[in-house]
């Protein structure tokens, strides 16, 4: 694993800063609405005619809105380890952006260790490995 290059599983959706990663979104220059994934065409606020956007790094901390897990192996394009290991998913509320963002929770944290309202931060972790690379994704990690 350590010999293989570390590559973003999805290019351009988050910074590859190992210590303090951020999700990369955009914000509308006219009304300030944030978008993740990035939007750079027409603002979706019905009262806004904005067509200019600025790329922004979203808040890397938030509070859990809700959480669950996946006891069954999902279908492709999910790439599961063999044997399959269930993982936890959280929906996290970002205060400044006033939006909820989904993501896996770091490995080893189950639903019984979480509560709505808990503080979490964004980290990078392996989504899956293949022969060429260690594919990295954003995940939510409880703040101790």
């Amino acid at each position, binding site marked *: 694993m350590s010999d293989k290059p570390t590559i973003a599983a999805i290019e351009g959706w988050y910074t590859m800063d190992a210590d303090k990663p951020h999700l990369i979104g955009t914000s509308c220059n006219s009304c300030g609405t944030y978008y993740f994934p990035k939007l750079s065409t027409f603002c979706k606020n019905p009262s806004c005619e904005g067509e200019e956007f600025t790329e922004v790094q979203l808040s890397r901390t938030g509070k859990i809105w809700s959480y669950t897990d996946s006891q069954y192996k999902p279908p492709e394009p*999910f790439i599961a380890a063999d044997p399959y290991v269930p993982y936890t998913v959280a929906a996290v509320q970002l205060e400044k952006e006033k939006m909820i963002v989904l993501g896996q929770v770091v490995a080893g944290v189950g639903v019984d260790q979480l509560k709505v309202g808990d503080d979490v931060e964004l980290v990078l972790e392996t989504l899956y490995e293949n022969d060429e690379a260690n594919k990295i994704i954003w995940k939510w990690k409880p703040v101790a």
Partner: protein
Amino acid sequence: MSNEIAVIGVGMHPWGKWGKNFVEYGVKAARDALKDAGISWKDIDYISGAATMRCGYPGYVAGATFAQALGWQGAEVNTSYAACASGSQALAAAKAKILAGEAECALVVGADTTPKGFLAPAKGYRPDDPDWVRFHIGITNPTYFALYARRRMDVYGDTLADFAAVKVKNAKHGSTNPYARYKKCFTAEDVAASNMVANPLRLMDICATSDGGAAVIVCSAAFAKKIGKSDAVRVAAISTVTPTFAGEIIEMPDIATDSAVACDAVRFRAQLPIKAYEEAGIGPEDISLAEVYDLSTALEMDWYEDLQLCARGEAAQLVRNGDTTLGGRIPVNVSGGLACFGEAVPAQALAQICELTWQLRGQAGNRQVENAKVGITANQGLFGHGSSVILKK
């Protein structure tokens, strides 16, 4: 009165996993509805089909497909697609045509055949498609329903026993419904023993997909009078509103909600019945029964609140009191709901109308709600589609 149309006939094909062509289910339902109305297929001057995306070209042009299968007779035709709300949108098209005076009597019909195996997204590396991305990172369909359920538990104190009670209630309701696919009276122990899918939801908390067909005949007040059915059930409102930005709840298949920095967050599910209540000029206190889209047990409880049958956070109290059970204050899903039917997308919203019609006519047999006067439906699906329809005596 002038804004109302009459429901003079309803019919269904039983839900199941029959493996036949969807057209067969739709035509069977349509013929039953015509018989129920006491009119002939040639009396229909407008046919409005709910499209199915799973059954190839005949499904995309469902209105014409059913018209041809029933025998071309020159009626005008429409096909509507609106995910789970397709049936309601097809009904809304018929209503508009009738109220405009351009049609007298319409057949609205939807049917579906479920695909074999998983509904998997297209393969390859497609990071520009958010739906591909969410599957790639492990966000499946049950994830969303489980997130809603868990939030109810942490915020309102709902329990697994409350969710199981919804399943037990609906199973009992549907156990004598001849059109339901699952007729077993499951117990709370059965639910607890079923496999966990996405905590806190178990297999038996989540609905299946089914084959099925449903049809509704609607007409002008004048036509109803002409055939001696002046006292037929009326469509008092059809709401098919789109969401309002910024959406408050994380919706399938999104990875993030809208940002609410410039606009207030709005709950789409609650908007749907608001428009219906306004259009009908009645309120939640007037409702005798409701048929709601219980894609999961916990989601049924969300609907109680979105329909304003109780205050936000109090749905579990309704379940515990037995208020939403047949015989209770406001019975919900007396048909058995999706728990007993499984979802047949283009037919489901029309099946809800069929059930309300039987209930308001007093023809629902063992599942009859006493003194039913007004019924409401609610459903929500993909792509910002949803609907809420009010029928009254």
